[in-house]
């Protein structure tokens, strides 16, 4: 019998589930949740909602029949849909990736799945023990020892007393705390604290696992352990994963739910949507343009250019610089940024140009070997020292590559078997 999160925030109880399990563990249907932009109003609406909730004669979303459907007209001033009509199902062994911009409603949806807050309309049914790898070490008391905090934190996460005793050594070993276990947690490094939090959180073996970006914490060696621990948990659970790391999503999730302003933009196989999402990310970010130059320079213009739109095509730039007095250009740096992501290529040139009045500088690259996306070009000219800036033009031009190469920059490896 599935249990509904909507009426109570009850921690779902453990139910025996037979291995040939066909019913979904998670059923989310037409879930809506509104949020308020204004704090003052939000508090007041909270009062209203509580009064509404406690009034047995009012029509509420969570009454038995679930017939209530929140409409746009139910939005009060300054409110908006943080999650708007989202539905999906999830079975054991499946992993659903939640993708979307900041503020798309991913965290709100996770909070509802975790039973912390309730949907305004629609329903969420969760079958089995829910475990969330969020808020590692929440509720740690800094004054108490690591051991005492393990007791408290593990009980908060729903472990029984004897379970905790059984797992105690395992947790201490995993967290690599060693002799510090009886020292107060406030004497721990931040790394030790997250390791301890992670070790406790992963001892709970859930049927439904909720992951919010905490795929790995600590240094490289510990991260490897984290990933292993998580993949073990994932094997036997229905998993919901929020991550901004496309690689994690691609590797771990067989389906994605793409949210945009609270609404479902796409729900389906990871490969179909992840690339479209990636492209949309860079499309929505505009190329920023800023041009600064020193007092000796009168103006800088882009007079001609040729940009690539396919893999391995060259980039050409023709720039006119007009100097009021003689300047020496000794260093020129041209960078290529993936818009809104990071710099992906850079070329630093040693030159020796003396410029007075107008001069035209020509730049040409070989074929640009980058994956599909939106790119912008930045050019900067310096004197002998990099502290001596003549001109910097961020976003001098932009280009878009569309040659069907998504994942990463393609490299060709020769493989030979001996």
């Amino acid at each position, binding site marked *: 019998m599935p249990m509904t999160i909507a009426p*109570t*925030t*009850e*921690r779902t*109880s453990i139910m025996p589930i037979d291995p040939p399990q066909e019913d979904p563990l998670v059923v989310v249907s037409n879930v809506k949740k509104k949020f308020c932009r204004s704090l003052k109003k*939000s*508090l007041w*609406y*909270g*009062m209203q*909602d*509580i009064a509404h*909730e*406690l009034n047995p004669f009012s029509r509420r979303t969570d009454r038995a029949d679930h017939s209530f459907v929140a409409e746009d007209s139910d939005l009060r001033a300054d409110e908006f849909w943080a999650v708007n009509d989202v539905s999906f199902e999830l079975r054991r062994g499946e992993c659903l990736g939640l993708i979307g911009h900041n503020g798309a409603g991913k965290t709100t949806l996770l909070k509802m799945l*975790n*039973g*912390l*807050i*309730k949907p305004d309309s629609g329903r969420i049914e969760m079958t089995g023990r*829910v475990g*969330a790898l*969020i*808020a590692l070490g*929440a*509720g740690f*008391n800094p*004054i*108490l020892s690591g051991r*005492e*905090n393990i*007791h*408290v934190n593990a*009980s*908060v*996460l*729903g472990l*029984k*007393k004897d379970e905790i005793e059984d797992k105690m050594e395992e947790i201490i070993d995993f967290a690599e705390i060693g002799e510090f276990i009886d020292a107060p947690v406030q004497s721990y490094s931040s790394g030790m604290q997250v390791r301890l939090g992670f070790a406790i959180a992963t001892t709970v073996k859930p049927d439904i696992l909720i992951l919010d970006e905490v795929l790995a914490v600590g240094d490289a060696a510990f991260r490897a352990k984290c990933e292993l621990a998580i993949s073990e948990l994932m094997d036997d659970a229905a998993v919901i994963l929020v991550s901004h790391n496309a690689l994690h999503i691609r590797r771990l999730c067989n389906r994605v739910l793409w949210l945009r302003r609270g609404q479902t933009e796409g729900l389906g196989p990871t490969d179909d949507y992840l690339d479209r999402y990636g492209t949309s990310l860079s499309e929505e970010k505009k190329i920023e343009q800023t041009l600064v130059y020193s007092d000796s320079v009168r103006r800088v213009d882009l007079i001609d250019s040729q940009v690539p739109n396919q893999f391995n095509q060259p980039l050409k730039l023709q720039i006119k610089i007009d100097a009021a007095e003689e300047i020496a250009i000794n260093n020129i740096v041209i960078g290529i940024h993936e818009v809104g992501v990071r710099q992906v290529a850079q070329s630093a040139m040693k030159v020796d140009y003396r410029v007075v009045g107008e001069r035209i500088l020509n730049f040409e690259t070989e074929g640009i070997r980058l994956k599909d996306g939106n790119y912008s070009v930045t050019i900067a000219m310096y004197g002998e020292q990099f502290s001596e800036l003549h001109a910097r033009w961020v976003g001098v031009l932009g280009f878009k590559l569309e040659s069907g190469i998504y994942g990463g920059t393609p490299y060709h490896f020769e493989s030979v078997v001996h």
Partner: protein
Amino acid sequence: MADVVTGRELAWRLFMRDLKAQYRQTYFGYLWAFLPPLVASLTFIFLQSQGITKIEGTGIPYAAFAMMGTLLWQTFVESMQSPLAAVTKAKPMLAKINFPREAILMAGMYMVGFNFLIRLVLLFLVMAVWKVVPTATLLLFPLPMLGLLMAGFCIGLALVPVGGLYGDVVKAIPIVAQFWMLLTPVVYPARSSGLAGVLATWNPISPLITTARGCLTGQPLDQLFEAIVVTLLSIVVSLIGLIAFRLIMPHLIERMGG
């Protein structure tokens, strides 16, 4: 209801956590459990001893009377503050982890109970010093005490919805509590006439305080019936309040953030 049972173990853990942490970081430790009411009673003992106030009909030495009153009153005030304080303190945890929410309320009440036990030692000390001899009615003492705890708890629970959202409530509680103490026969015996008499009748805490103290001093329990009624009512209201608490917590978490 099942969660109340599973939440018990958790509540105990949380209580032990708070207890250890609370007294590990103080120098005077358990002294803080009874210092505030003691200081409050000293004010009145001073006024009385200097003849500034003339409170009569206490039956026992005034100092003992006032101290017992304030020690009992303190337990009521603490249990009234407890639910909201527990929710406020556990905010970061409530906002991120799903666990039986009742556990934090229970843990808070365990703490109130623990502090009461410490005060109880002092109460008996006061009785020994001033040679206050209880009679058989001492056996009834747990009843008005339960009443004080439950009355405080249900009032405190009622403050959670508003207090969880608006900070004003937390600030207002000590002021109201102080004033309320003067309206309750804590440092003076209950009156039967005048405004003080009306207040003694309609103030639900009056019968609890006078009955609790009466049980210790062996004086007649004039308001025993009222005390029983208030106790029973408090228990019923508290149970209803716990159900309401469950319903409103998601709303509070949604609005109060981490």
